[in-house]
């Protein structure tokens, strides 16, 4: 019990902290590294929720795949373009206002929601090994969405290849 909350607080603080740093960094590579630490922190939270298959998928796909793409593009693009330009545009007060409205709205909803939300997560019987369970449900109940997702990836691949060709 004790360990759960320690772990949760550690990962939560790490996630929020590096998220803030990511948004405020001037150098794109630094913000990429902080985004990686946010993703690893969320992976830790997945682990804390006993979803170790998602923990591994998050690391392999997100951090090992997508973020490598990001770091590649940042390096390709930022080689000689001056990075030190002004990083915040004039819309900052719009964002601040929107964030406040959004945050206030969410908190009001949570407060009014009453018992529905903050019920103690019932410690359901320890779930069977996560990977097999995800596998079976994914390929039986959600087979159609699985196929649609693969088509989506195919389309994305073709799009990326066409975009990257030098002489289209």
């Amino acid at each position, binding site marked *: 019990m004790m360990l759960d909350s320690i772990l949760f607080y550690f990962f939560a603080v790490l996630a929020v902290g590096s998220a803030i740093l990511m948004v405020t960094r001037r150098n794109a590579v630094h913000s990429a590294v902080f985004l990686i630490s946010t993703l690893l922190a969320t992976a830790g939270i997945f682990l804390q929720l006993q979803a170790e298959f998602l923990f591994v998928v998050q690391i392999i796909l997100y951090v090992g795949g997508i973020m490598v793409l990001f770091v590649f593009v940042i390096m*390709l693009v930022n*080689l*000689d373009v001056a990075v030190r330009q002004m990083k915040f545009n004039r819309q900052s007060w719009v964002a601040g206002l929107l964030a406040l409205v959004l945050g206030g709205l969410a908190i009001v909803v949570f407060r009014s929601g009453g018992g529905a939300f903050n019920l103690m997560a019932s410690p359901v019987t320890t779930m069977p090994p996560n990977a097999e369970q995800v596998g079976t449900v994914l390929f039986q109940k959600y087979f159609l969405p699985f196929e649609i997702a693969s088509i989506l990836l195919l389309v994305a691949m073709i799009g990326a290849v066409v975009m990257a060709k*030098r002489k289209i």
Partner: protein
Amino acid sequence: MDPTRHNSTTEIETTVLGADEIILNMGPQHPSTHGVLRVKLKLDGERVAASECIIGYLHRGVEKIAEHRSYQQFAPYVDRMDYVAAVSNGLGYCEAVEKLLGAEAPPRARVVRTILTELQRIASHLVWLGTHALDIGALTPLFYCFREREEILKIFEKYCGARLTTHAFRIGGLQYETYDGFEEEAKRFCDDFAHRIDEYETLLTENRIWLGRTKGVGILSAEDAIALAVSGPVLRASGVKWDIRKAAPYAAYAQYKFEIPVGKTGDTYDRYIVRMEEMRQSRLICLQAIENIPTGAIMARIGKVLKPPPGEVYHAIEAPKGELGYYIVSDGTTQPYRVRVRPPSFINLQAFDKMARGSLVADVVAIIGTIDIVLGEVDR
């Protein structure tokens, strides 16, 4: 990158990848340029759009020095040009001066000269194979090749006291009689060298990665080869059957039977096959020569002070790198008026741009290796 394309002479090191040309400098301080050669490559992405070899870092003005030295005094300088194949340099120079004098080395001297030159050709090709394979990434052939080369250098050392810049020959013949046991050692080397070459071949010839890195790389067609006056293995690999040992036999080559290996497409793999075959042929020549070394004098009677009659002579031999020619003009004094050397490495290097154009940057190293240049000879 302002839109107006300014091609200023200063190197534009635009570092944005994938954009247009980048100027890339390789050398003169570079692990795989076989000495102090600087190659300036204009890259279009990964491919070489144009290239230019900048040489002269090792220029010592050997030909100018010759005008202030007597014929015998200049002989050791000749070894310092192609320091990897010093013996054949010496042979070329001595025979040219003998032609000038109208003298002729005695038969025994000519046969011993042939044996030593062929051993030097094997040693030079071994250096080429070792460094060429190392550039392409195969670490082991280098050590096998240098182990065999060590045997040859031992023979040179026993005969004339030096391993690399040997000054083995004198104008008119030989200074030293062959040490006893010369024939046995040379014969033992030739005998076990046969299966050594097969050892190298097992490592490289059918190796898929070696094929991938050498087949179709640095292609030089026969017309281009002839147009660029390329000579030696590079010419023969392009399909032109031209070897001075057969065309204008010198020393004792007329007496021996040997074939001239010829390639087909003139790519790096053909040059590799041609040189490996040449090593086998050189071994056969040595064996035939060792059988009957004629007895008799080793030095022609041409006297101490050499005063060749005024006139000029051009004498070319088949050095390991190609046709090594000496054009000597004498004005009747003891010192040559002019000594012009036709360096095979320098002329073969001009074919580099034709071969490197359109190839990948990674192949530039393989192409430099396959032309087999020695910067001492390129810059003189």
